[in-house]
């Protein structure tokens, strides 16, 4: 196989990996605040993207507006879900919240099917489809666009978490909720902010990936690979989520070149098992430690 073809495969792997990474980040944001997994992350992404698409289909607005609509819808959805469903269950065990989000994912998928049918819709892309040629290497703008936009978003999140009060408060809550309360941080407000932020990151990932995998009620399944990416990187770690996502995307794309192509969909799980055998805490994970 030529180097050029290899570069092509790796770049498109990084593009898918960026989406996995964004999904992983969304899951980690919610996990760090509320110590629970949000199984509905993918469906929240799907619904927000559909809302944006509906506006696009009705009014033919520019894509930037579609994205903004999806973001606002996602923020609203995240806020409402946290306030109405999660906030009251948080006092009980994390398992209750887990089951609630699992149920929510099924409800959202059915509701989306009822509203928008279970068909696949082509979604407009920010990026053209004329390949960019760099010497022997041909790259698809979609891949580069997804990678660039995702990296930009990740940088924005990094700035939020390290340089703003809200971000610092979120990280403080992740480390020690009681101490965070003693600092005058409203932990409840951090819960809200975490759900809104995770939902918004998901919506942006949705708008980026929808042109590639088509818009459909099933597109939320991408969150499963996001979850695997988060575990790969070491669950709870943001840089880990990015590394895990990229790693998974590239391996998933490379594997069919060397292995039977039918294996592609089991690759994420094989990678997960392999890495967890070598490093049980994930690539950037810390050794397991229980918080009291």
């Amino acid at each position: 196989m030529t180097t050029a073809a290899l570069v092509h495969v790796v770049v498109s792997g990084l593009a898918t990996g960026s989406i996995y990474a964004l999904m992983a980040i969304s899951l980690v944001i919610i996990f760090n605040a509320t110590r629970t997994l949000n199984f509905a992350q993918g469906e929240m992404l799907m619904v927000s993207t559909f809302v944006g698409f509906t506006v696009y289909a009705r009014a033919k607005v520019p894509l930037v507006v579609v994205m903004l609509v999806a973001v606002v819808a996602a923020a609203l959805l995240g806020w409402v879900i946290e306030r109405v469903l999660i906030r009251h269950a948080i006092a009980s065990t994390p398992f209750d919240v887990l089951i609630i989000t699992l149920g929510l994912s099924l409800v959202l998928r059915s509701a989306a099917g009822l509203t928008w049918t279970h068909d696949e819709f082509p979604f407009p892309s920010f990026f053209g489809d004329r390949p960019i040629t760099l010497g022997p290497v041909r790259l698809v703008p979609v891949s580069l666009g997804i990678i660039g936009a995702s990296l930009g978003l990740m940088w924005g999140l990094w700035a939020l978490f390290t340089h703003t009060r809200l971000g610092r408060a979120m990280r403080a809550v992740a480390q020690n909720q009681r101490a965070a309360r003693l600092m005058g941080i409203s932990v409840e407000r951090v819960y809200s902010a975490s759900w809104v932020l995770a939902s918004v990151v998901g919506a942006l990932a949705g708008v980026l990936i929808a042109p590639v995998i088509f818009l459909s009620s099933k597109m939320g399944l991408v969150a499963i690979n996001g979850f695997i990416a988060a575990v790969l990187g070491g669950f709870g770690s943001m840089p880990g989520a990015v590394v895990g996502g990229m790693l998974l995307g590239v391996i998933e794309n490379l594997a069919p070149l060397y292995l039977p192509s039918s294996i592609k969909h089991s690759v994420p799980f094989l990678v997960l098992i392999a890495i967890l055998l070598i490093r049980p805490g994930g690539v950037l994970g810390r050794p397991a430690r229980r918080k009291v």
Partner: protein
Amino acid sequence: MAPTLVVEDLAVYYGKRRAVDGVSLTVGRGEIVSLLGANGSGKSTTLRAISGLVRPARGRILYEGRDITCAPADAIVAAGVGHVPEGREVFAEFTVRENLLVGGHTVPRNDVTERLEGAFGLFPVLYGRQRQLAGTLSGGEQQMLAIARALMTRPRLLLLDEPSLGLAPMLSREIFRTIRRINATGVAVLLVEQNARRALRLAGRGYVLETGHVVAAGTCGELGEDSRVRAAYLGLGKPTRAP
């Protein structure tokens, strides 16, 4: 002028277990009051109820005359109560500077730099360790950081839970000197301390808790003479058999 803190008939339950049952105490303006008692006598729980971490089942808590009994913890911090918890609970994955910044969460943005300078002025050792992760500090440094972090909001009441726990004698002396200095700036202190002798030397008055009740109260001179206190906490008054 209302006293800094008035606790009336406070009761706190953990499930069905009574942790605090009918505790009343007062901290006057600028006073140091110590709370003595064995492990599990309800000292920490009393502090947690005051700072809003646990909800009292009964009783009233007044801060500067205002009822804060069921106020959320963040409102109580904003009102001017700082709580340095048992075991310091610094944010281990934050740098020293980030710990202080998060301590200033409720502080107006323009004042944060000034408060940071104040913290470094009180604890110069933290200045040189600004960029170090708090989890890598020694116990004494973590205690200083925990106190400095609580002072970022300029509280008028400081709740200190076992500040000398696990520290070498020299370091705990330094911590106690610092508490005196903080108090000299007008901050009232409610001090929970295992080392009763030292606590009584520092405080003006004290309360002794046993299984959630106040069993003795008075000035430190009086408590020092109290036979129960002498026996239980100062190791005096009763011959003790060598182990």
